[in-house]
């Protein structure tokens, strides 16, 4: 819920402070949750971006 950004601001702030203190157990749960959210995020069917999107990106990269 925290990683989804779905917690209330107050609860989210409390958990963030707790994690920042380095609680190993909770950080392990966060890693596990990150894996779950990664999985959920990829339940959609892949879609190819248009060729122009890639060309524009590569032009920007090469110009940097």
């Amino acid at each position: 819920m925290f990683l989804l950004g779905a917690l209330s601001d107050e609860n989210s702030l409390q958990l963030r402070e707790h994690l920042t203190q380095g609680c190993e157990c909770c950080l392990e749960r966060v890693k596990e949750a990150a894996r779950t959210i990664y999985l959920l995020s990829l339940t959609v069917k892949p879609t190819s971006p248009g060729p122009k999107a890639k060309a524009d990106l590569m032009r920007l990269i090469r110009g940097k």
Partner: protein
Amino acid sequence: MPGEAKTGSSKPLVENGKSKMEELLGRVADRDVEALERLYDQFAPRLMGLLMRILCARSDAESALQEVFLRLWKEAPGIARSKGSVAVWLVFVARHSAFQRLRTQRAGAARPAPGPHGQGRTKEEKPGGRSAGPPRREHKPRERPSSKNDSQSSLFLAASPEVWMPRPEDIELVDARLGLLQRAFNQMPKPQRLALELAVFEAYTESEIAAQLGEPLGKVNAGLRASLTFLRHRQHAVLGTWTADI
């Protein structure tokens, strides 16, 4: 010269047991444009599917996709140092970028009234039949835009990737069994899956989901937690034993 782009590297994709994506990330950190292009070719369709699911409009999704890869180009050295999975980093940055855009759109939707299906999205903008889950539900128009622009979780994720990012080898295992895990997602009770979709793809908080569904906050909260616990257990089963009955 630092920051100068290199092209044309012919290094093999797998070296010393390192995964292909992490190998490419190392090369991107070294300013290898071809490596970035190969990461894009490998991962852009999955990110684009996610971005279109969240944002609907192809132009918005492509713009967000560009932002993700520009950030990757800029932040690759730090991501490589964190030793986390670049695939997870890409997905979380894509989600963050899309959610920011969606919330900005909603904040602007205090402007002209959205169409009968809410949130200003048109049927023409919706990609059809892409989700492994149920089709997108038409939600009530929101009366109040979300106040969140940068949540506590995104601040945490950005500040300390080394402590939360799963290792590449864990993600390779998930990727290899993605189909089974998707089945587990589809086996969830419909109300729980719906609430989860609102959090995962629509950037709603638990209280906003309760308002959308017209359910008490406590019930929505309990349902979301139950669905995440269900998925966690199924994930353990799938990743721990091939014979697990899911």
